[in-house]
């Protein structure tokens, strides 16, 4: 158990002492005590019949702050935002039945993006389970497939152990969401409380130290590389700040170019000359071509997702691949690798750096490779036509970045075109600053995630770069932001379309725009005011800077209705089923999409 490592002998004895003459508490009190002992300062929740005893216990204490959401999905995404921006475990609380089912999307989202989260749900009393009682749902059954692990607590004697174990499971190995379903009678029942230090999991002890032999093989490959690339992912961020430091140190020592997945942005500084930009479907031309043409690929904490690889049989055909992952099932799942390293990213990167420094071999000259990369860079694949009359969405994000880069800024996004533009045009030099739903692609993630981030970082500037369609999926959480004085800035790139759907319909479905126009959009300025927030609208590029500064300076939650070019497409783009070197660069390059390309899905 992680807790042991950081404890001195006295603390460990205290914890053991607690176990022997354990305090007797109600189940609900055990929940709150266990959360506090786990270092949880904030939880996100919504009350209901089956969690009322827990809400009673919340009422009676001061250590854990409760943020009241407007929909349980919001609580889940807030916990995710909290977790991703702090590196700690997020906690959400919901009642039985609909409370639990509303939580399913964030649980699945956290599983796909490996976000540590503990979700506590109420359940009908044990004697009513299976009777189709009011607000009963088979929560452990429903969440089994979308959580890392889950528990139904049938006896109050197990409750404290299970809660501590849940935090251990959520945070260890490849992180993920853990659900604890607690029947109402267990919340009322009295039982012993045990502290976190006495809990050790029977079977779950993921490997974190790399095998020496694998590190040697990896370093040997890297030392011979003529066209290397480092492909880093969200695992580097999950591993903690030390892993990002190790990545930077390894890149500096080797001189290798670095690209990253959507999840991994910030682990390597975007301002570094070795940075190639994001890779994948909407990644940079230089990153994708470097991936395709490299001879040694160092994949760190990424999982060869289909949005990254494009067509698998044409993926980086000439390279030897090193894959560092804490989850052995990720290795050889989609892409065959030559050197598998099962380990925590930070530890593996540290070991590789040590091996690299020891290695007597001289690296081949990387100058020709960098020369090639510079030629790709010269294509300026993110270039877009400027306009003096209409706000281009790319321009809006460029200005947002320019006007906020000197601040303590965190960015979340929804899902769609705006998300890709944010990834392309907003740059991060630090990890844990960028929160986006990558694996599950959950529209409606960004607004509540921003609230979770703001709850963890009260003084920071937290911006949700949003789309007009996505943001309406969880808009009700504006009310939560106003209530708890969490002044998140919702920067909506409003093009009146579900932009990415429209783009695919244009490029791949014969311009048949079936149900992708956002008809009857609300007036976002009035909507902000209705919630008690601050509304801003901007339609003219000349006014944009002033409007963004007004947003930053507002002490309230802001809905910023940024009216942008309606028909703008997100380029460059690798259509599904195409290879990395078959990117569509967009009209500005004079590229046309072939008929064959239109047939692709």
């Amino acid at each position, binding site marked *: 158990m992680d807790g042991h490592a950081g404890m001195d002998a006295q603390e460990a004895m205290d914890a053991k002492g607690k176990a022997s003459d354990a305090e007797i508490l109600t189940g609900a009190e055990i929940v709150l005590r266990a959360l506090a002992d786990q270092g949880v300062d904030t939880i996100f929740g919504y009350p209901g019949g089956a969690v009322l005893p827990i809400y009673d216990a919340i009422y009676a204490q001061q250590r854990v702050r409760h943020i009241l959401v407007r929909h349980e999905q919001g609580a889940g995404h807030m916990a995710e935002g909290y977790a991703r921006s702090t590196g700690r475990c997020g906690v959400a609380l919901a009642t039985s039945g609909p409370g639990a089912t509303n939580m399913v999307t964030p649980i699945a989202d956290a599983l796909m993006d490996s976000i540590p989260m503990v979700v506590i749900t109420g359940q009908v009393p044990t004697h009513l389970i299976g009777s189709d009682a009011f607000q009963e749902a088979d929560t452990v059954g429903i969440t089994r*497939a979308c959580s890392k692990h889950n528990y139904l607590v049938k006896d109050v004697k197990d409750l404290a152990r299970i809660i501590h174990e849940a935090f251990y499971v959520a945070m260890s190995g490849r992180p993920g969401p853990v659900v604890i379903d607690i029947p109402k009678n267990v919340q009322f029942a009295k039982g012993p409380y045990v502290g976190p230090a006495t809990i050790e999991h029977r079977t779950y002890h993921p490997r974190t130290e790399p095998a020496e032999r694998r590190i040697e093989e990896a370093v040997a490959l890297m030392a011979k590389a003529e066209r290397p690339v480092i492909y880093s992912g969200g695992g580097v961020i999950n591993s903690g700040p030390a892993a990002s430091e190790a990545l930077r140190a390894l890149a500096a020592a080797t001189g290798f170019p670095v690209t990253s997945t959507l999840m991994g942005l910030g682990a390597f500084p975007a301002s570094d000359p070795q940075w190639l930009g994001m890779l994948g479907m909407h990644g940079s031309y230089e990153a994708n*071509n470097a991936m*395709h043409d490299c001879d040694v690929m160092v994949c760190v904490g990424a999982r060869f997702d289909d949005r990254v690889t494009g067509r698998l049989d044409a993926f980086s055909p000439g390279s030897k691949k090193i894959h560092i992952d804490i989850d052995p099932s990720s290795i050889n799942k989609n892409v065959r690798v030559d050197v598998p390293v099962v380990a925590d990213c930070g530890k593996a990167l540290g070991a590789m750096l040590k091996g690299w420094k020891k290695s007597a071999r001289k690296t081949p000259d990387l100058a020709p490779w960098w020369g090639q990369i510079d030629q790709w860079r010269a294509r300026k694949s993110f270039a877009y036509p400027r306009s003096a009359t209409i706000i281009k969405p790319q321009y809006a994000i460029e200005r947002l970045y320019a006007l906020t880069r000197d601040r303590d800024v965190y960015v979340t996004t929804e899902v769609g075109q705006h998300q890709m533009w944010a990834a392309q045009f907003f740059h991060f030099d630090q990890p844990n600053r960028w929160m986006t739903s990558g694996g599950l692609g959950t529209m409606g993630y960004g607004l509540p995630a921003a609230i979770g981030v703001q709850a963890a970082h009260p003084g920071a500037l937290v911006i949700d770069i949003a789309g007009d369609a996505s943001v309406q999926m969880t808009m009700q959480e504006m009310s939560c932001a106003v209530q708890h004085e969490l002044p998140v800035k919702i920067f909506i790139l409003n093009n009146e379309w579900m932009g990415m759907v429209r783009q695919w319909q244009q490029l791949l479905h014969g311009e048949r725009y079936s149900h992708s126009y956002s008809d009857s959009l609300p007036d976002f300025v009035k909507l902000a005011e209705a919630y008690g927030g601050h509304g801003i609208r901007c339609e003219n590029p000349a006014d944009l800077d002033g409007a963004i500064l007004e947003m930053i300076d507002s002490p309230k939650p802001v809905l910023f209705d940024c009216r942008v070019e309606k028909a703008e497409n997100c380029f460059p783009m690798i259509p*599904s*089923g195409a290879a990395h070197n078959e990117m569509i660069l967009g009209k500005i390059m004079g590229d046309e999409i072939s008929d064959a390309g239109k047939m692709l899905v």
Partner: protein
Amino acid sequence: MTRTPRARAAARSGVRDDPASAYDMTPSAEGVERRTLACIVDNEPGVLARVVGLFSARGYNIESLTVAEIDRNAHQSRITIVTSGTNHVLEQIEQHLLRLVPVARVIDVTQSGGIERELALVKVAGTGDKRVEALRISEIFRARVIDTTNESFIFEITGASEKIDQFIELMRPLGLVEVSRTGVLSIQRGKERVG
């Protein structure tokens, strides 16, 4: 656009005449083999559902599955699964099983040369020569008669799955009525405890 000749050649060779989506790339049935895996798991509620759910969620096959507690004090159960797939799929199955929190160990019984046994109860009805023949064959297979009427036998037979398959096939023309099988059990050879 400048590119090394080697990379250009690689790009060209990677492009097929019929461009297809990445989603269409179904693995070929080539090299599919059968494998027996034994999982030692914490005997906690829902553990079987997790294992079975993993197979259905990821589209793997289960040909047979047996489960029972093997150590009451340690709360451990052994789940023996017979599955099939390519080498790549079988490796993934093993890794995904290990990813489940209550799974302590996975043993590849087939590759480590373990012993596999199955028990079947086989009901055969008939009279005259067919009845005599059924009894004669059952002796060859060392099956036991555990119930009989004037017109039927129930045989209990243990052995490798292939032996049981064979016995059932021989009983079919002799009046096979019903079969009940346990699925495969497994254990490692030698004096060591592998589970």
